[in-house]
């Protein structure tokens, strides 16, 4: 079995012309294979290979380096920290992978030696490059692969949301106010980047309290919760007016209202603090309303100077409710001989809802009945009863069996509440709150490592594996079946894993792959931030939402129908509603409902021609071929262009030298600078291939009365006319797309960036895919079966 080189260099045979593009693509690829942070300990392997490496270096490579590089890069004058004269073998290079990777890139790009200096022949350049690659990235895939180390991962917003949903079987929106999770490697589930600042912990405990009170209902008679509203918190209608001292004055019929959220159905007390200026035969009256409907009246005999509290009992249902108080019996007789008996007015300070005083036993939520299965009594202490209730819940929340002594601590919290005279249910709320802020819930802890031997590689236990599976495919917790399989020790079997992957993909929860993976791989989430100029483009939030939905449904269809992933690039169909179809100029689709539409008669294919992608790669006032080209290279070809040179302003100067030139002509000036041309030749060609789509994805054939030129030639001479031909060319290059997709999905699955040693994993998956027509389920299955997914390398103890 031969050892494998950088996989980017192992594309399938292709036409000669196109292969040159691929070489460039491959060249750019090496940026991704950055070495691991800590070098692996040098193993006593392949002494012979190293001797060979040294020999090649001394005989073939070193002379070239001395000839072309050493004048500027020597130990006396190590320009940019590079010195070639002191290097004698591969080990010397591996000591500083970062620097030498940069050297490799520069030489490959023809960025070094500088154009003003003597240049090596292509063959000589290839000799240097291939030796450096081998020295830096040589891997033997036959040997045990390093599965890498995944930093403990905190649940991100999506995972938290889904986990609460699946844990309690209720749809809440607990994460709405959480700060966004920082993104690394293009995704927001990367352990190293997910931090837990104080703000977030405060949100966690507030969310936990609200969740526990929504899923278990409790009455606190001693000290019922109250929600009070006054001054600006009240919405005033009719004659109600707020005056300077905070009093609300109603000189005739008027209403004060507030909206609040009722967590538990039951009986409450609705209160006002009020007083009145009395007149006429009746005492001033307040009518209470819930959601605008009268629920009863009270007399308000107190004067405005000595306001009193008045209230009544009301039954409230769960949800957002409006509570109100109206002055309903205005009296005004300005002619009355007694000046003190002419005008009846109401004065009000606040409205309050207190309770629940009593729960409605017929209206207990499903979650309450499922959780509260026993009550303490003579036979059963509070701690025992709480343990019985909490044991199944905590096993699922912590995603592994919970030892008795651990359970005990949480059950005792329930007891703490009952000892203070509160109900058993209230105690359970406290215990559930604790469970939801425990690191065992908030983090996906993967057991413990052997600190004495950082190089140890171990198989994940079945519960750890269950969590990796469920958070990969569902962005949520493992279900009962996964936990049961883990409990029986069967989950780790390859046959079981294969079966579970199919089952999980078929489950509606695999929507998590759309919300978690697709929305980030395709940068769909950034669509929320784009802000097209209304003068340039007719855009609306509805259209924004439609665009996103189209791409999500398209991805989901490929996943659910288990289609080849290459259809994402080239599929001649999509999902449209009336508004989006009109946007695209497609007839025969009416109404708001999305449906599958064939695109065979239209110049659109796959995600690249969808309005979502076309919009988020545009500037507010115009398209950006550079952004589009870069987006394609990053997300479709997996060959992100390297960083631009530091002194970009020269482009600006060049642009000014040609006033009145078309945008395309201006951009073409880039290529006059060889350093820019390296990337822009490809980036711009790809971007201009999409120029028939405007800044919000509408088809166009003209721009500023000039016909659009969407033709182009990719490096290597492969020419195209317009987007469909260009996508066809990209489609011929299946392995590049498949490899790029695999790598993105692997990053998402592992929650870490890929290292050079992950190449074997990627190679293996791509190989399996090609023998199985690239179906979606195969790629998920192959990732799940890989060592990187099922194993873990330890890490040393804290220094």
């Amino acid at each position, binding site marked *: 079995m031969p050892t494998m080189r950088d996989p980017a260099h192992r594309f399938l045979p292709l036409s000669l012309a196109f292969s040159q593009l691929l070489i460039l693509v491959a060249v750019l690829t090496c940026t991704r294979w950055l070495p691991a942070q800590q070098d692996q300990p040098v193993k006593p392997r392949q002494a012979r290979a190293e001797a060979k490496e040294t020999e090649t270096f001394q005989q073939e490579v070193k002379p070239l380096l001395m000839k072309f590089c050493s004048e500027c890069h020597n130990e006396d004058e190590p320009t940019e920290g590079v010195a070639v004269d002191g290097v004698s073998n591969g080990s010397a290079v591996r000591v500083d992978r970062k620097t030498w990777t940069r050297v490799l890139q520069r030489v490959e790009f023809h960025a070094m030696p500088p154009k003003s200096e003597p240049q090596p022949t292509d063959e000589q350049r290839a000799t240097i490059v291939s030796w450096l690659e081998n020295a830096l990235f040589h891997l033997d895939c036959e040997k045990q692969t390093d599965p890498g*180390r995944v*930093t*403990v991962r905190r649940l991100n917003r999506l995972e938290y949301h889904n986990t609460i949903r699946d844990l309690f079987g209720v749809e809440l929106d607990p994460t709405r*106010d959480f*700060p*966004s999770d*920082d*993104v*690394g*490697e*293009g995704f*927001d589930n*990367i352990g*190293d*980047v*997910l*931090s*837990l*600042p*104080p*703000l977030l912990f*405060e949100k966690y*405990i507030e969310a936990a*309290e609200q969740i526990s009170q929504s899923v278990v209902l409790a009455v606190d008679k001693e*000290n019922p919760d109250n*929600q*009070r*509203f006054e001054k600006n*918190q009240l919405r005033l209608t009719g004659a109600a007016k707020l005056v300077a001292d905070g009093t609300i004055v109603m000189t005739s019929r008027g209403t004060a209202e507030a909206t609040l959220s009722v967590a538990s159905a039951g009986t409450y007390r609705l209160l006002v603090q009020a007083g009145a200026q009395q007149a006429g035969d009746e005492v001033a009256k307040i009518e209470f309303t819930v959601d605008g409907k009268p629920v009863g009246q009270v007399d308000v005999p107190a004067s405005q100077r000595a306001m009193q509290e008045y209230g009544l009992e009301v039954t409230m249902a769960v949800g957002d409710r409006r509570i109100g108080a109206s002055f309903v019996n205005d009296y005004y007789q300005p002619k009355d001989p007694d000046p003190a008996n002419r005008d009846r007015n109401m004065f009000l300070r606040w409205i309050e809802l207190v309770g629940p005083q009593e729960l409605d036993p017929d209206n207990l939520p499903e979650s309450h009945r499922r959780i509260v299965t026993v009550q303490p009594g003579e036979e059963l202490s509070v701690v025992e009863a709480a343990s019985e209730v909490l044991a199944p819940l905590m096993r699922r929340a912590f995603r592994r069996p919970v030892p008795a002594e651990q359970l005990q601590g*949480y059950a005792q919290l329930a007891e*703490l509440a009952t000892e203070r005279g509160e109900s058993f249910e209230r105690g359970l709320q406290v215990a559930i709150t*604790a469970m939801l*802020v*425990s*690191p065992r819930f908030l*983090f996906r*802890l993967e057991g*413990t*490592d052997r*600190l004495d031997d950082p190089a140890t590689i171990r198989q994940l236990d079945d519960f750890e594996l269950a969590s990796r599976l469920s958070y990969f495919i569902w962005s949520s917790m493992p279900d009962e079946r996964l936990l049961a399989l883990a409990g029986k020790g069967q989950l780790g079997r390859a046959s079981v894993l294969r079966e579970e992957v199919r089952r999980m993909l078929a489950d509606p929860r695999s929507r998590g792959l759309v919300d978690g993976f697709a929305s*980030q791989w395709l*940068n769909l*989430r950034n669509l929320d*931030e784009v802000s097209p*100029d*209304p*003068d340039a483009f007719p855009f609306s939030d509805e259209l924004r939402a439609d665009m996103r939905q189209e791409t999500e449904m398209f991805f989901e269809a490929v996943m659910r129908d288990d289609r080849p992933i290459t259809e994402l690039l080239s599929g001649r169909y999509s999902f449209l509603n009336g508004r989006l179809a009109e946007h695209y100029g497609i007839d025969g689709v009416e109404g708001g409902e999305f449906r599958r539409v064939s695109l065979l008669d239209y110049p659109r294919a796959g995600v690249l021609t969808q309005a979502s992608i076309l919009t988020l790669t545009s*500037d*507010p006032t115009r398209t950006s071929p550079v952004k589009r080209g870069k987006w394609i290279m*990053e997300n479709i070809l997996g060959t992100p262009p390297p960083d631009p040179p530091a002194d*970009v*302003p020269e*482009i*600006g*100067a060049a642009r000014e030298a040609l006033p009145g030139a078309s945008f395309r002509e201006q951009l073409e000036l880039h290529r006059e600078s060889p350093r820019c041309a390296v990337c822009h030749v490809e980036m711009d060609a790809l971007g201009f291939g999409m120029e028939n789509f405007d800044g919000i994805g509408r088809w166009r054939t003209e721009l500023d009365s000039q016909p659009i030129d969407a033709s182009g030639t990719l490096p290597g001479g492969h020419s195209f006319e317009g987007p469909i031909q260009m996508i066809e060319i990209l489609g011929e290059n299946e392995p590049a797309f498949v490899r790029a997709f695999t790598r993105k999905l692997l990053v998402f699955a592992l929650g870490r*960036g890929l290292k050079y040693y992950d190449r074997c994993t990627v190679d293996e998956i791509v190989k399996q895919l090609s023998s199985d027509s690239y179906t979606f389920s195969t790629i998920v299955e192959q990732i799940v079966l890989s060592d990187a997914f099922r194993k873990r390398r330890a*890490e*040393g103890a*804290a*220094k």
Partner: protein
Amino acid sequence: MSQLPRRTFIKGLGITMGLPLLEVMQPLASASAAESAHPVRMGFVFFPNGAIMQSWTPEKAGTEFEFTDTLKPLEEFRSELNVLSGLGQDNGRAKGDGPGDHARCASTYLTGAHPYKTSGADIRVGVSVDQAAALQVGELTRLPSIELGIDRGRNAGNCDSGYSCAYSSNISWKTESTPMAKEINPRLAFERLFGNGREAEASRQKRDFYRKSILDLVQNDVAGLRKQLGQTDRRKLDEYFDSVRGLEVRIAQAEKAASQTPPELELPDGVPSDLKQHIRLMMDILVVAFQSDATRIGTFMLGNAGDNRPYRMVGVNEGHHSLSHHGNKAEKMDQIRKIDGFLANQFAYFLGRLRDVKEGEGTLLDNSMILYGSGLSDANRHDHHNLPLVLAGKGGGTIRTGHHFRTDSEVPMNNLFLSMLDRMHSGVEKIGDSTGRFTDIDA
């Protein structure tokens, strides 16, 4: 003088701290120096993408300078601020890491540290100056510090040339690897400081009683586990423990400051869609927070680094970041000037609100030091020197104002931070590349 170590070195921060002895031996609340009737408040207002420096920097130095077009809105505060020219943040430069100046400039802005270039593994920069101050005086107030912003962090994709988005969306860093997430919803920021106002004192006490028990339990539950983790995992768990302890301190503070009536402020429920209103509400919150001594330290990002939003209210329809690469084209520079002016106007609003609050003989602005600025100067060239900076407020009478201080050679921004930290009694001796203190401002 004493056997207690006078200095501790906080590893990796580049901050050497000389803890005043008093504070080591006594409970913080009685630390006399920090406990005055009108303590000094420290604020940082950051704007993205630099500025058109020709329209920012006054021509003359000294007290006779003229306010430039961009700074015009600040003229009414002439006697209460300084314009600072010539300061730089050297660690924002590439130093061999290539492009990514926007991400670097934000993460370096208040930390003075060079961010480790990574898109995922090993996020690392340094402790920011506001957090260094919070370490010292944070426990005296309800909230050690508050972090506000207009935009959430980015949600997908790359932020800036191989840098994790954490770098471009945070200027405040609690530790070298923990950015302080910002609150962008005005109401939630307010409630974090003052409670929701609807909760009765008894309910709060009851809730906090259980919270304390819950926090005790979860810490005990995993204390043993922590010892068995490798260093990276342990660091993550330590972030958790730090945040738990932060909440415990807040609970203790709430007990002390019980039943303080929250200030009056009318706030919408969600995030306002109008940028000006959003910015001003956040500034209002900072003002009431400082005024009521709910916190003494605040940071506010008017946009994440490299932000590309249009400013339609002043006729700018193209994205800010795209425009900032103006290639010295007059029309694009004009657009940027409009943005610079708009933002300066908002800052003027903030200063006005601070000045409206009377404190003793002076104003809240007198007792504050608010640094307004960006981590880049000319964004077209990604310059990290000669940053656009205005330092407003008299730092409780310790800062002389009314000057345009201009230095010919680059002075590390960290020198200024050291001087500001002195005024928070923080005893920090060195930050990053600081070469001394920025004594020009000393009254």
